[in-house]
């Protein structure tokens, strides 16, 4: 699949942002609430908090001789933090309005702008994308995504080239796991 950098201009052009290495100070990380109620009911939970030092550690384990790793290292050069909370469910779930409101209050602070608000009643999907801007440069990104069986919040601190991120799509695949014991039977194949 070819990725075109033009694809991501839809996101950046409205506010005249340039996705380049940030000269602006990074935005503060969002204070993400606990989603304990969601986690308790989720079949899968992803809870990632990588601050500057952990990003540095991760970068040290990217193999510069591997083109995908090298591209990833370049991609995260401007990042100061990346935080993900994602919950997957077998069926529907109760939208965590109270916690989302806590996040939206922070996104109403000066500097943050909502770039995109999509709401598909057909797909029961809602995605809001916010960007933090300082002196004309993006220094933070926040995504709140609600799908029929998944709820996700992403907060990126620092700058990231979305076109470069998209060019790596398909390369991330499934992360290598040192598989912990499974607590549940897998279903037999049909």
């Amino acid at each position: 699949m070819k990725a075109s950098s033009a694809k991501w201009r839809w996101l950046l052009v409205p506010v005249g942002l340039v996705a380049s290495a940030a000269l602006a100070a990074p935005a503060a990380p969002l204070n993400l609430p606990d989603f304990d109620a969601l986690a308790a009911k989720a079949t899968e939970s992803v809870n990632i908090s990588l601050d500057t030092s952990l990003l540095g550690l991760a970068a040290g384990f990217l193999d510069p001789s591997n083109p995908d790793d090298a591209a990833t290292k370049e991609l995260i050069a401007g990042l100061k933090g990346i935080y993900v909370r994602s919950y997957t469910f077998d069926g529907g779930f109760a939208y965590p309005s109270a916690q989302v409101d806590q996040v939206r209050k922070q996104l109403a602070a000066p500097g943050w702008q909502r770039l995109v608000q999509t709401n598909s009643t057909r797909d029961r999907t809602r995605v809001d994308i916010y960007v933090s801007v300082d002196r004309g440069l993006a220094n933070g990104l926040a995504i709140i995504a609600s799908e029929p069986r998944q709820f996700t919040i992403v907060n990126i601190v620092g700058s990231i080239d979305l076109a470069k991120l998209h060019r790596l799509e398909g390369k991330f695949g499934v992360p290598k796991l040192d598989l912990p014991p499974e607590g549940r039977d897998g279903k037999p194949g049909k």
Partner: protein
Amino acid sequence: MSGDEECARGDLLTQALAGERAAFAALVRRHQRSVYSMALRMLSDRHAAEDLAQEVFLQLFRNLSAVSSEAHLGFWLRKVTMHRAIDRLRRAPRLEGAAEELAAAVSEAEPADPLLERRLLALLRELPAAARAVVLLRYQEDLDPVEIARTLRMPLNTVKSHLRRSLAQLRERLDGTADALT
């Protein structure tokens, strides 16, 4: 599967958990085709596939206590095989199989159209690793999209998207082959 068969399978796992090597070897023989086939179609190299398949069973031996049932064992093996294969593909240069490797990857059953099936396998190798894994789990392992999502720890919509795009790509390229031959 009959009740007696399920009982026998359960006994085998119980015996293997109790340390009986012969029972573990029987489990390997029971599941080796599935594991090796997944590895072969992902890596397109017999030696790499054999090596990966062996590693999967070694990992199983070391972590057998994590497996709670025969059904869970199938799920565990598919998950580990695919994760290792995808990781290996990400780290190693693209493995270019020779014609003999493609021949080896064709199923053992008498193919109705061997040329077409070889072409399909060649086109499958052109898919990105994650998409290839989804296609294999769907059409080789006969899992439904929800089970694939669980196995690969991938959102359901991503699984469906991979299936849709992969089938479209395969069809388009097959049609291109047909046009070129006419």
